[in-house]
């Protein structure tokens, strides 16, 4: 074991102790979901239309309601919660940006850990949304490489995934500790990120 490893281990232990001292769940600020939902709905008809993704409306994370939600989540959870939540997600194979073809067996050995509540998932969700936004912007800048028919079919697929996200998110808002719903929601986000990533890569010839 190197010196760096022991430092990491000590730091990890310290983080774990700090994480253990935190409340097990935090309710999201009221209205946080409303901001996210309106962003998804606005995005639905033109999923990678630059005008809708970035301008003329301010991006959803620049809206006061989301900034407030992010600030509260940051203060309440601190970076420790983020680190713990992200590590749990990584452990179960739910990386935000899909890796190039990982072995399916790796994705099948998911543990039951992961975000246990809507509040924890909200932290992870912002990463998914950021990834979606980045990939949508990239795709928009390279859209000339895809035929109009393919773009139309891609939009339809993204709309279908957005509808699934919206339905699962609404159900989770009513039942914030439902881990099955959290898994489903994470799965839908991953499919969206993966589809955007694959399309971007394919368009590059």
């Amino acid at each position, binding site marked *: 074991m190197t010196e760096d490893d022991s430092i990491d281990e000590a730091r990890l232990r310290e983080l774990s102790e700090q994480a253990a001292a935190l409340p097990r769940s935090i309710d999201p600020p009221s209205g946080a979901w409303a901001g996210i939902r309106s962003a998804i709905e606005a995005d639905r008809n033109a999923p990678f239309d630059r005008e809708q993704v970035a301008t003329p409306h301010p991006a959803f994370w620049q809206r006061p309601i989301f900034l407030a939600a992010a600030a509260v989540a940051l203060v309440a959870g601190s970076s420790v919660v983020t680190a713990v939540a992200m590590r749990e997600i990584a452990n179960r194979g739910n990386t935000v940006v899909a890796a190039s*073809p990982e*072995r*399916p*067996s790796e*994705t*099948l050995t998911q543990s039951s850990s992961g975000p246990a509540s809507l509040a924890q998932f909200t932290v992870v969700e912002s990463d998914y949304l950021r990834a979606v936004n980045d990939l949508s912007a990239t795709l928009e800048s390279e859209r000339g490489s*895809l*035929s109009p*028919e*393919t773009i139309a*079919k*891609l939009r*339809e*697929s993204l709309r*279908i*995934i957005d509808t*699934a996200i919206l*339905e*699962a998110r609404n*159900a989770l808002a009513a*039942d914030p500790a*439902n881990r*099955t*719903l959290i*898994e*489903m929601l994470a*799965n*839908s986000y991953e*499919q969206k990120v*993966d*589809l955007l990533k*694959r*399309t971007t890569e*394919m*368009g590059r*010839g």
Partner: protein
Amino acid sequence: MNRRMLRLVIALMTLAGRAEAQTKVERGMHLNADGSVRISNLVGSVRVIGWDRDSVALRGSLPKGDKLFMGGGPQGMKMFVEPLNDRNPQPSALEVMVPARAKVWVKTATASIDVSGVTGELDLYVVSGTIRVSGNPSELNAEAIDGDIHVTGDPGWLRAKSASGDVTLKGTSDDVALSTVSGAIAVNGGKLERAKIESVTGPIRFAADIQRGGALDIDTHSGTLEFTIPRDTGADFDVASIAGSITNELNYSRPTKGRYGRGAELVMTNSSGGARVKIRSFKGPVTLRSAK
């Protein structure tokens, strides 16, 4: 009669014109038995056939003015078609014989990809063409946006993804991941060890066996799931639907109301157990059956 003759003459002239507009190509190169081949063709078709020789042979038909580039060495080579007009590429047909153990990478836009007899690794990408693979590649990664993917054979490792296209597997594999958004997924006949199958709205039909000690995960948002295994397959089931129904015709276990007060759940063991089956559906109906 005269009108009929005129139509025939016009048809023959059109066919002759098309044939004249195509250029035939034939090339060959030495390639190690486990060498790599990369093929790129935007429109038309790519057919890859594995053979028992340390060489690559290409036969193709290109639109007049298009160019075929082919180069490399014994360890790796690539070929691609450069269209005369890349804004409006015309169909090219490539038929490529490769060493059976070669690693093959093919990328197209709307061209179909057809691979047979390759036992090496396959990486196949289409935007809207169809991918067909038959044989037993050691690894197969197939991706489409709105094209179908059809696999017949026993790939050691399989990963197939489409969005609106259908994905089918007829065969056996140790390690499978199939995914669509709205496309249908069908697994038929084989015996799987580890598998993950997911769709958003696409229907899923699973009619296969699971190895003892294997693991199967199926996720769908609103697609219907028809799940059929042999009656005596030992498996431990964990099935949950948030708002959909679960129908069990596999054995006498009955689903219960979901633990969160809605939907349905079914936790049961079939036969003596062994394989792990986890099914998650948001609102698509789930039906479990035994094979006749």
